[in-house]
């Protein structure tokens, strides 16, 4: 083993020897520096390895032959090894990244660079507080030295601000150190810890000065303007050094010195962290500069780490896991983003769509951002989970709220940024990427993936099975160069195999009807909806890995047995679907809405799970049933997450445009399948929580009203849409309203209705979207009034749509009527007459858009530019006809589906079920015999058709314009197609119902947050003196706070 002392020796020696080279041969000097950096990394890495594998003991190195306090001692323990490895490998990667920059600036810069890392290394290792101060100063001086060598105007003026601020801070630290020495007589940190200075009179001031200086080194909000400016102005290669090196080292200082302050300091540090996390993220949302966004994000992450540190005692043995999973994610991802920012060399995030030129980098940006956001499968997700669970368990609900709110703000600015990258724009400049700049970025992304795997394993929360989808997705990603056809087959067979395993091998033997039903919707639905993929040409890069992830998320929901697994799967599915939606042509803004609402919903769900855990101490899904005290809160919070997904009234505004702008086959996937995940979640939630009476019945009552109003508004909105996909999308909101309403009735019939609706909605909504997608694919327009008369060109699609709308409208004899009939029974049994009437009214309103759909597309006059259209591709038609078969089977013989579900529900709702007698189903109110009705209808229809046919055999088929048109012959199809603004009188009478109240309300919230953020951030005036003033005020306020001044 190479002793840690060599780190200092080598770094210092190299730095000085570099001086001999002058600028003679910069390649040699760079190689020297690079080797030194590599050796540093090697030393720290080998120690880390030793600690991890060989149960290495912590060692102390005493310099100058004396024991402390008479000499300076260094310590190399596990934590030191981790931090050093992080810092040094960052140095190594930075050196690679800055290769040309360092060469250009010459040996001076290399020396300073080397010194900076030496300083950081000693800062981590030293156990002498004055030594700590000295090397902290050396690192700052080195950093400022790096900045001045940049010779950029912005960088220099912000470097000066940095100097002023850090000068003040180091002054405070220095006084603190001397005062500490005065009271304890030692500079050795271990002595200081045992001295319990806080208890000594006057000693507490000394401790305060040290602690506040260390906290200020972490750039806490709001005393951090100086750091933000530096972040923004420096070369992109230096940003990671500040955020990943200096901030990491500063965190370690806090960690090291925290015992001096003792437990009394935990809470203040936690509060500082909370303020920092929330404040920085809040101000981040108004930022436009990529580096400044990263700066805000860095500071907020440091705040989060401070929170974690303050919880070190209550987290117990989970502390290391939480701390390192968050720290390392932030460290890796931030470095990656800074480096990419440097590659792009554009400060405004609006210009980042230049990345379109290199899709690989977009993938990397995505990985980094999702890592920062703590989305699964990235490491911070596990850490955040443990953190929130722990906070909840100790009753810190306010902190949970603040952390989740802060994370939401972070999501706003990071994801908006991500969206901007994907905005399509012509005439982009070329992106020149230097290879050596790419190496560290790629390395870091691999490190993230590796670390994700390690954290998942370390966490022990999920089994090995959960990696399979990621491996498959990665495999498909690796073979992304293959044509669509092969990848589609691969995807379909993967899903088919998995549905065989899951449904046939697992749940059918268990007879778990709930999971069979939803498993079939999710997975068999997936197979059906993947078939149209064959029509796509080219490679469709990135599509299939996401599809696999989305469906594996859905399957994960089915399989989940713990709240963690559920949440994991939920986030995977949300993330994958977001990325699928954003692939659409103009989908950036809609998908942003989608992911924001989803994230907010997921966070409330997260908080709800936290509450449940706080009470039961178990993350099992079944344990939700044991929640009693917090039952209402937990229930409501979790439910909100699901309500967002099913686009319940009030949180529905993301849905229409997301559906409309997604790719056509993606739309059918998400509308027919994905949206059911919310229904499934609600069912799981209600089964475990609502039935136990701990939850106030008022909540389902309110949910019922939300469902009813959603049904009405969704359907009302649908009838005015001119965009065909939006029309069906709004209709989805309506149908989801029915399902929510039915579920919240909490009765046998209500739930039977909800199940039936879920199945039937899956069938007809998939059918409609597929058929419409086929039409859009041919007509190349989504405007419904630009179509017309297509029955002549696309009769098969017409049949699909016809069956789809008959089912949607709930007309007998098709399957939709089953839902309607059960609905009536359920409503009357439950006694929710008024809500029920609203739902029925909205069901009838559905007729209007059903007719609009079929008439405007298929009936009426054919447009001139559509005269030569062909029928939709066979790949669009095959899944449609599979779905039609499904609808027909359920229509004729609903018993095969409804009866098992009824039996299953009897376990939970034993009373007032459906009684089957042959093919007749009856409740205590009414009865219904689908098979007979179908027979009677078919017979009657046949007879009448034969009569008509026999009486009008010689009918002559006439030309399009041959109509009774006031003696004239219309010239253009457009003039006789009554299609645009079809329901104007209806709008005139009832248009007020569809005024965009909800959209305006959300817009108001969103914009208020932005303008407040915009106003608040103005206190960062840009003047170095103001920043110094902030620091002074911060110290004073903090002091008053600590000493009960407030």
């Amino acid at each position, binding site marked *: 083993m190479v002793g840690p002392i060599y780190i200092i020796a080598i770094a210092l020696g190299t730095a000085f020897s570099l001086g001999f080279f002058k600028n003679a041969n910069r390649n040699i000097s760079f190689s020297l520096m690079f080797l030194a950096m590599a050796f540093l990394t090697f030393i720290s890495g080998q120690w880390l390895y030793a600690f991890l594998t060989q149960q290495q003991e912590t060692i102390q190195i005493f310099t100058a032959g004396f024991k402390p306090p008479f000499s300076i001692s260094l310590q190399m323990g596990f934590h030191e090894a981790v931090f050093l490895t992080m810092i040094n490998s960052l140095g190594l990667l930075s050196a690679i990244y800055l290769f040309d920059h360092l060469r250009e600036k010459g040996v001076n810069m290399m020396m300073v660079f080397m010194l900076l890392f030496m300083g950081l290394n000693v800062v981590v290792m030293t156990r002498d507080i004055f030594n700590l101060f000295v090397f902290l100063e050396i690192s700052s001086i080195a950093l*400022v030295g790096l900045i001045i060598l940049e010779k950029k105007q912005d960088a220099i003026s912000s470097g000066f601000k940095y100097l002023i601020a850090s*000068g003040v801070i180091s002054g405070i630290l220095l006084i603190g150190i001397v005062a500490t020495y005065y009271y304890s007589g030692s500079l050795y940190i271990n002595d200081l810890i045992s001295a319990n200075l806080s208890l000594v009179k006057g000693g507490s001031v000394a401790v305060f000065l040290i602690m506040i200086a260390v906290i200020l080194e972490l750039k806490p909000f709001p005393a951090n303007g100086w750091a933000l400016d530096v972040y923004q102005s420096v070369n992109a290669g230096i940003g990671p050094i500040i955020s990943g090196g200096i901030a990491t080292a500063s965190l370690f200082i806090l960690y090291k010195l925290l015992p001096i302050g003792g437990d009394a300091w935990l809470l203040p540090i936690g509060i500082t962290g909370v303020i920092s996390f929330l404040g920085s993220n809040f101000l981040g949302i108004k930022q436009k500069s990529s580096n400044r966004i990263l700066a805000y994000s860095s500071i907020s992450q440091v705040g989060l780490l401070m929170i974690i540190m303050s919880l070190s005692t209550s987290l117990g043995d989970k502390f290391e896991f939480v701390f390192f999973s968050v720290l390392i994610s932030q460290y890796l991802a931030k470095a990656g983003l800074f480096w990419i920012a440097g590659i792009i060399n554009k400060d405004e995030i609006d210009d980042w769509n230049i990345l379109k030129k290199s899709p690989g980098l977009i993938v990397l940006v995505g990985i980094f951002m999702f890592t920062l956001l703590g989305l699964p499968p990235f490491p911070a997700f596990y850490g955040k989970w443990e953190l929130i669970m722990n906070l909840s368990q100790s009753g810190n609900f306010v902190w949970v709220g603040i952390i989740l709110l802060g994370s939401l703000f972070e999501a706003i600015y990071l994801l908006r940024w991500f969206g901007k990258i994907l905005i399509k724009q012509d005439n982009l400049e070329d992106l020149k990427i230097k290879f050596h700049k790419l190496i560290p970025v790629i390395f870091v992304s691999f490190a993230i993936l590796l670390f994700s795997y390690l954290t998942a394993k370390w966490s022990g929360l999920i089994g090995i099975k959960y990696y399979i989808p990621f491996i498959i997705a990665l495999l498909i990603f690796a073979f992304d160069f293959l044509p669509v056809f092969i990848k589609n087959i691969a995807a379909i067979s993967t899903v088919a195999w998995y549905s065989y395993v899951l449904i046939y091998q697992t749940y059918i033997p268990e007879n778990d009807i709930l999971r069979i039903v939803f498993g079939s919707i999710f997975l068999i639905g997936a197979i059906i909806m993947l078939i149209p993929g064959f029509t796509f040409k080219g490679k469709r890069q990135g599509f299939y890995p996401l599809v696999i992830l989305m469906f594996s998320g859905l399957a994960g929901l089915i399989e989940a047995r713990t709240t963690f697994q559920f949440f994991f799967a939920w986030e995977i599915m949300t993330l994958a679907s977001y990325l699928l939606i954003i692939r659409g042509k103009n989908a950036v803004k809609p998908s942003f809405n989608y992911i924001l609402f989803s994230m907010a919903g997921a966070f409330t769900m997260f908080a709800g799970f936290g509450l449940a855990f706080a009470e039961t101490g178990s993350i099992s899904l079944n344990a939700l049933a044991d929640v009693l005290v917090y039952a209402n809160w937990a229930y409501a919070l979790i439910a909100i997450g699901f309500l967002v997904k099913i686009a319940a009234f009030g949180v529905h505004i993301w849905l229409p445009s997301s559906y409309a702008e997604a790719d056509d086959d993606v739309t059918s996937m998400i509308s027919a399948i994905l949206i059911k995940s919310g229904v499934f979640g609600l069912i799981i939630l209600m089964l475990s929580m609502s039935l136990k009476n701990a939850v106030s019945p008022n909540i389902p009552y309110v949910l019922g009203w939300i469902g009813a109003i959603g049904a009405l508004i969704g359907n009302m909105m649908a009838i005015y849409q001119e965009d065909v996909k939006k029309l069906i999308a709004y209709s989805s909101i309506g149908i989801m309203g029915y399902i929510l309403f039915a579920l919240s009735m909490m009765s046998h019939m209500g739930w039977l209705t909800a199940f039936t609706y879920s199945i039937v909605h899956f069938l007809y909504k998939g059918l409609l979207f597929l058929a419409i997608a086929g039409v859009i694919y041919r007509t190349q327009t989504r405007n419904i009034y630009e179509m017309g008369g297509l029955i002549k060109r696309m009769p098969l699609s017409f049949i699909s749509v016809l069956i789809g709308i008959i089912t949607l409208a709930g007309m007998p004899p098709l399957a939709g009527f089953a839902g309607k009939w059960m609905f009536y029974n359920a409503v009357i049994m439950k006694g929710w007459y008024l809500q029920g009437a609203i739902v029925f009214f909205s069901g009838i309103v559905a007729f209007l858009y059903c007719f609009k759909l079929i008439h405007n597309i298929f009936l009426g006059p054919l447009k001139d530019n559509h005269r030569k259209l062909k029928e939709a591709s066979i790949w669009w038609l095959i899944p449609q006809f599979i779905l039609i078969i499904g609808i027909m089977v359920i229509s004729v013989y609903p018993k095969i589906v409804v009866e098992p579900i009824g039996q299953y529900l009897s376990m939970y709702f034993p009373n007032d079920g459906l009684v089957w007698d042959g093919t007749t189903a009856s409740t205590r109110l009414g009865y219904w015999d689908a098979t007979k009705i179908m027979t009677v209808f078919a017979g009657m229809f046949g007879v009448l058709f034969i009569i008509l046919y026999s009486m009008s055999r010689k009918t002559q088929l006439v030309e399009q314009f041959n109509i009774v048109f006031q003696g004239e012959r219309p010239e253009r199809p457009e003039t006789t197609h009554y299609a645009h603004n079809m329901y104007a009188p209806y709008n005139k009478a009832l248009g007020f119902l569809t005024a965009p109240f909800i959209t305006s309300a959300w817009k108001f919230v969103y914009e208020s947050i932005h303008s407040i953020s915009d106003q608040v951030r103005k206190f960062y*005036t840009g003047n170095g003196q103001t920043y110094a003033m902030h620091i002074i005020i911060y110290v004073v306020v903090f002091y008053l706070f600590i000493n009960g001044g407030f």
Partner: protein
Amino acid sequence: MENITLQNISLAIGILVILIGLWGLLTQKNLIKIVIGFALFDTGIHIVMVSIGYIKNRTAPIIDSAVDMNNASNLVVDPIPQALVLTAIVIGLGITALMLSYVLKMYQKKKSLDITNYKDLKW
């Protein structure tokens, strides 16, 4: 009157210098004056450090004719704060020098010594 010892006087002076330095650092618009303010601030800290280490009626921690080797620990003041001050002065010097070079660079670019002219980055 007992409180007016050499130590307390120097401590008070040190704190005064710190405050003056801070005042200059925070209020002066001229970059050079700010640097001077910082230097004062730093010097004040050094005075405070030395005065904290001072023990009444003792001499400098140098072993020579005035200080007996064997009784040194009772005759001299605590040497450590003084050693610290030396280091701190060096660091302070370094920072001040760096600040001045910054001022130089800033002046070269913008021909202005007014700090309010260097607010390009903000918010």
